[in-house]
């Protein structure tokens, strides 16, 4: 179980049946007060045997609305055909944590949901035994029925649900979740919830949500981050067709909450957006206007020539070790800011009535959104209801709640009327919380045996003094810390006001590329096979490092060995201009190793023929089809980051505005084949949204080197003349 204790509660469902809910025991601030009896539970068993399960976490395409109910259904031992899944509203007292980020949904809910399901099954068995007039220990369950095998008698859950609800709750230690060998649902690719609705165009996304009488809003923010709206031609705008309101929003000085801007509200969204074309705003742009990407690059170059500002980690005598090495490598890497560019632009619906706010939001952190809205609007969190809606992609963009606060603010100006805010693609791309760029000056050396003896990274990133901006840091424990004795990481930070934040596999999506490209450089310098060089680096100790730094080298080695075997590493003859590359990375509790086979022609046109991926995310792959889909998608996502995606800053504003300037991989460019394998280790299941992404960047970059002899040290690669074949 999680650190917070969770108490289950069983009650009678009105109209008959059984309802299982719960509440969190530990009070954490005012919103974690004692929950009333739960009307909106995890499990509802109706007298007709239909079971309603609550998908408690935000669904953004990671499949959690299917996977978490599958855990419940497994422990309940019910027929998936009789299951209906509904999306739960935000109530973290009732449901526990309801965020989607850090690939935490599975590990945070695995024990909890097995306990909920197993508790309900135990009570149903007790009620079933009484109903059948047989000893409870002779009963078992199957497909939503309690069975007494000796007599051949059975009764459905629906028939006994009301009786079960009246029984005393078993103590947690009386409840035994199933043995994995008895699983009938976990490990099977059950039909994805919402799939029929998706292929028939049902209005299931946040952008589709409407209420009668709703008005629609656009929001023009200062193009310079942190700038303020001073005045605007509001009178003219208000006269535009179908426009109902236009006003300046002063903002609260925090772009992650409420950036200053101008809201235009109309009867339909298109009218608001048309009126916006005539909008003239006088902005107070503020100090960020002096920031440019060119300036950042120049500053980094200057900083590389100087001593680092502060140490992150220093093991052994790095300088002496590098000086004494037999082969030395010195290489400078750099990578850009990038945008999340999820397909569904930011949007949110809100209604403010009698001092209470209701929002319908596509958030990855609805609880944080509720807190922020409360603070921005001067409300109590308890006066804000948050409904969760399916989102067209998250990738970390919806960890922020700016769309929710903006919608809430606009709704508060028009009490009683529901409003819907929708950003354009341009709004979305120009006002993101970008994956921060960075610069790494890598120096290292190997000894005569080909072992890495010294490693130094001058990590130039963004922040003030020693404080990194969001998602830009390197940790003292980042690989290969603890694997190389003379190991140093030192940093210097460049101040920025560009908003930054987590993008799928934050930090790892850039660090893995630098670290595994550089390891590849060292392997080639040492004249070693890149896979063998990495196996030697991982060594023979099962776990390396202590506490937070513990790195299960055994799990990673198993992934690396299997991916080498599956890809025929070193065993296949490759055509001229074709090469294979390898990379691995541990992040978000998951271990992944990948190999790419790539060809490069004289015009630097790159074709990725195939990627092999091996992952270890614990003992169970809950939904194999969805799991493979995540890996395939992460690989293609990583390819977009590698080749083309870059956000540049000019005069304190984002230059790129739409997909054509921030290109993602298209079907033609995607690898014809991606082969995915999972190693089921004896570890509790963990998440899959993020860990498959980081290794693909170095795997492809290293394959490009093997194919062409060109080492990619600047992203996106298009800047160095590469393009997809």
């Amino acid at each position, binding site marked *: 179980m999680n650190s917070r204790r969770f108490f289950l509660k069983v009650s009678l469902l009105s109209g008959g049946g059984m309802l299982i809910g719960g509440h969190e025991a530990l009070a954490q601030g005012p919103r974690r007060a004692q929950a009333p009896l739960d009307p909106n539970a995890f499990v509802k068993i109706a007298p007709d045997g239909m079971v309603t399960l609550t998908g408690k976490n935000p669904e953004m395409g990671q499949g959690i609305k299917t996977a978490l109910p599958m855990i419940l259904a497994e422990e309940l031992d019910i027929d998936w055909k009789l299951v209906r899944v509904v999306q739960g509203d935000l109530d973290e007292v009732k449901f526990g944590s309801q965020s989607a980020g850090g690939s935490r949904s599975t590990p945070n809910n695995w024990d909890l949901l097995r306990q909920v399901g197993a508790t309900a099954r135990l009570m149903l068995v007790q009620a079933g035994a009484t109903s059948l007039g047989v000893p409870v220990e002779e009963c078992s369950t199957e497909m939503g029925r309690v069975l007494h095998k000796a007599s051949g008698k059975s009764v459905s859950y629906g028939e006994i649900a009301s009786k079960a609800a009246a029984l005393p709750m078993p103590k947690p230690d009386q409840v035994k979740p199933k043995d994995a060998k008895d699983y009938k649902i976990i490990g099977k690719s059950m039909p994805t919830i919402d*799939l029929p609705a998706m292929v028939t165009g049902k209005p299931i996304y946040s952008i589709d949500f409407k209420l009668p009488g709703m008005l629609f809003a656009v929001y023009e923010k200062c193009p310079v981050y942190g700038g303020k709206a001073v005045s605007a031609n509001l009178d003219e705008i208000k006269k535009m067709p179908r426009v109902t309101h236009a006003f300046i929003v002063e903002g609260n000085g925090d772009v992650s909450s409420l950036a200053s801007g101008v809201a235009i509200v109309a009867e339909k969204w298109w009218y608001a957006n048309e009126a916006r074309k005539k909008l003239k705003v006088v902005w107070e742009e503020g100090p960020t206007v002096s920031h440019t990407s060119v300036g950042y690059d120049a500053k980094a170059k200057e900083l590389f020539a100087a001593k680092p500002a502060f140490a992150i980690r220093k093991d052994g005598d790095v300088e002496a070790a590098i000086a004494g090495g037999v082969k030395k490598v010195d290489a400078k890497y750099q990578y850009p800011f990038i945008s999340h560019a999820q397909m569904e632009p930011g949007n949110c619906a809100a209604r403010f009535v009698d001092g209470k706010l209701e929002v319908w939001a596509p958030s990855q952190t609805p609880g944080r959104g509720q807190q922020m809205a409360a603070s921005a609007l001067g409300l109590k969190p308890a006066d804000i209801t948050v409904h969760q809606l399916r989102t*067209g992609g998250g990738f970390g963009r919806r960890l922020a709640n700016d769309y929710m606060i903006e919608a809430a603010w606009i709704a508060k100006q028009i009490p009683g009327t529901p409003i819907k805010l929708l950003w354009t*693609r341009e709004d979305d791309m120009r006002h993101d919380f970008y994956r921060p760029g960075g610069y790494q000056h890598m120096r290292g050396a190997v000894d005569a045996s080909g072992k890495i003896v010294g490693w130094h990274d001058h990590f130039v990133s963004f922040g003030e003094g020693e404080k990194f901006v969001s998602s830009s840091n390197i940790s003292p424990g980042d690989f290969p810390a603890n694997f190389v004795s003379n190991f140093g990481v030192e940093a210097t930070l460049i101040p920025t006001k560009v908003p930054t934040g987590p993008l799928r596999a934050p930090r790892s999506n850039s660090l893995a590329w630098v670290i595994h490209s550089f390891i590849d450089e060292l392997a080639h310098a040492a004249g070693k096979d890149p896979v063998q060089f990495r196996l030697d680096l991982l060594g023979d100790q099962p776990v390396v490092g202590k506490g937070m730094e513990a790195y299960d080298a055994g799990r990673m080695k198993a992934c690396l060995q299997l991916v080498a075997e599956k890809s025929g590493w070193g065993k296949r003859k490759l055509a001229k201009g074709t090469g294979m590359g390898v990379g691995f990375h541990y992040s978000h509790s998951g271990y992944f190793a990948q190999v790419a086979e790539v060809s490069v022609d004289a015009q630097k046109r790159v074709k990725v023929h195939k990627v092999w991926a091996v992952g270890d995310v614990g003992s169970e792959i809950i939904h194999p089809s969805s799991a493979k*889909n995540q890996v395939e*998608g992460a690989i293609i996502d990583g390819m977009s980051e590698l080749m083309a995606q870059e956000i540049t800053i000019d005069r304190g504003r984002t230059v790129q505005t739409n997909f054509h300037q921030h290109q993602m991989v298209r*079907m033609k460019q995607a690898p014809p084949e991606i082969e995915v394998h999972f190693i089921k280790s004896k570890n509790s299941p963990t998440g899959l949204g993020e860990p498959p992404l980081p290794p693909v960047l170095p795997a492809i970059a290293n394959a490009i080197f093997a194919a062409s002899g060109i080492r990619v040290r600047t992203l996106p690669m298009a800047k160095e003349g590469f393009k997809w074949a």
Partner: protein
Amino acid sequence: MAIAMTLNGKPVSVEVPANMPLLWVLRDELEMCGTKFGCGAGQCGACTVHQDGVPIRSCLTPVSSVAGKKITTIEGLSPEGAHALQKAWMEMDVPQCGYCQAGQLMTAAALLAKNSNPTDAEIENALDGNLCRCGTYTRIKKAVHLAARLMQTSNASGANNNE
């Protein structure tokens, strides 16, 4: 101005400015939200619908230009999910977030209507303008092939009754 068209086999008329894009007519005037807004610039294909059987980008199409035309949207492909492509999409468990998939399906439906057994290259060419941020391309390709097979064994309809 009043603009009349045939939408998913039924006559409809809307009273909107001539330059309102078809996308917003569908989503906000006719309350058919299956067609998605992705970029507003013809970059992503999420808003793809058929005009007389040909895939078009509804975000860039002024509604006046489709007056008198037959328009088919995802809602008209088969509301019950009986089209071979919808069956194949479900069988192959194609989507992740699913936001782009209406556009992918409409582009693929137009392809299969004129080419009942496309090659990989033909599928790639047809769907090159449809972005999938989740990266489900390999599954989309497999699902189009599966739909072509389903249509040949006539287990499912690939024909669009509305066109």
